[in-house]
């Protein structure tokens, strides 16, 4: 695999596919995990330029290091690799792939125009984000899980069974995710948006009929996927988001 191609591609899936194919030709089978799977499944306009690949635990870290260096990557003081042709930082966290207590064996093969890539399935990507939400207090990860579940087909039964084996808090998180998803299946009007905002009152300790509380909630939901979908605003379009929230308050 010609790594000169890294210069030509921009998306995480293309970049990851080039690296995946290069490793595969050297006999190293890896799976892409973590936040970049979410970026791929949601076609996110946000990127943290991280590509986390997990190799089969039988493969030694020194083998991977040698292949990556041969391919022109530089190894840094941390455990990640950099290449002059790409901004992405490649890391090989210690395996196996784990989603809480589960070690998934089935992964998704995604075809791109520069090659194939093996990554978490959308359902497993949701589990990964929920783990980050619950176990690492990554509040934004719930929103990411909802976005993946909304934009892709996921296996809800499998997700529920997995949560049951995890812990009570994970079951609550999955229920929260399902409750949020329901809003995205309905016809959007001001009443629906109001009911969504009211559903957030308890968690965010606000009363949306009070102006300062409404303002506070608008700030708290700055990266909330559902409210952005209901308002028809892309995540990150902050100026439009605030304008629409202000108009909404006057209408409610």
């Amino acid at each position: 695999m010609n790594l000169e191609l890294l210069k030509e591609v921009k998306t995480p899936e293309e970049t990851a596919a080039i690296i995946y194919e290069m490793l595969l030709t050297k006999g190293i089978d890896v799976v892409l995990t973590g936040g970049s799977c979410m970026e791929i499944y949601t076609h996110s306009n946000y990127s943290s330029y991280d590509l986390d690949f997990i190799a089969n635990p039988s493969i030694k870290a020194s083998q991977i290091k040698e292949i990556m260096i041969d391919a022109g990557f530089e190894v840094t003081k941390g455990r990640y690799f950099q290449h002059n042709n790409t901004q992405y930082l490649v890391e090989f966290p210690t395996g196996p792939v784990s989603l809480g207590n589960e070690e998934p064996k089935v992964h998704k093969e995604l075809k791109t125009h520069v090659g194939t890539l093996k990554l978490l399935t959308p359902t497993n990507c949701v589990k990964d984000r929920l783990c980050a939400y619950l176990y690492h207090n990554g509040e934004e990860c719930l929103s990411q899980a909802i976005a993946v579940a909304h934009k892709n087909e996921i296996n809800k039964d499998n997700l529920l069974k997995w949560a049951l084996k995890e812990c009570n808090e994970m079951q609550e998180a999955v229920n929260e995710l399902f409750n949020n998803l329901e809003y995205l299946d309905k016809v959007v009007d001001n009443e629906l948006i109001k009911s969504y905002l009211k559903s957030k009152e308890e968690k965010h300790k606000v009363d949306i009929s009070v102006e300062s509380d409404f303002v506070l909630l608008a700030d708290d939901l700055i990266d909330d996927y559902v409210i952005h979908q209901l308002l028809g605003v892309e995540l990150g379009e902050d100026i439009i988001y605030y304008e629409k929230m202000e108009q909404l308050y006057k209408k409610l």
Partner: protein
Amino acid sequence: MLDILFGSKNAERVLQFLLARDNAYAREIALFYDVSPSVIKKQLEKFETGSIIVGRDIGNMRIYELNKRNPFIKELSALLIKSRSTYDSKERAKLVRKDRSRPRSKNKPLIQRRDDN
């Protein structure tokens, strides 16, 4: 807007940052606003003396937060929120959007891109 009332721009900044992020240390606030840590420290110490904020030591860092036991904290917060709502949208979003706090490999830089920026 509240700088006149609080005595300086950095005084308002300190309170706005603590309200938006729940807690912070002096250098973090200084980096956010691109000002000298000493001016932020001065404001933090002033508000701590006045019991408007409280601090605690973690390692060699002093972490501050609004003093939830202050009798005026509800009114002060409402004032700050009102003032924040008049900020330019980009500035307001930058202030309220919390930094990533999930675990990350040691020494690994965090590059974040948003296509609209």
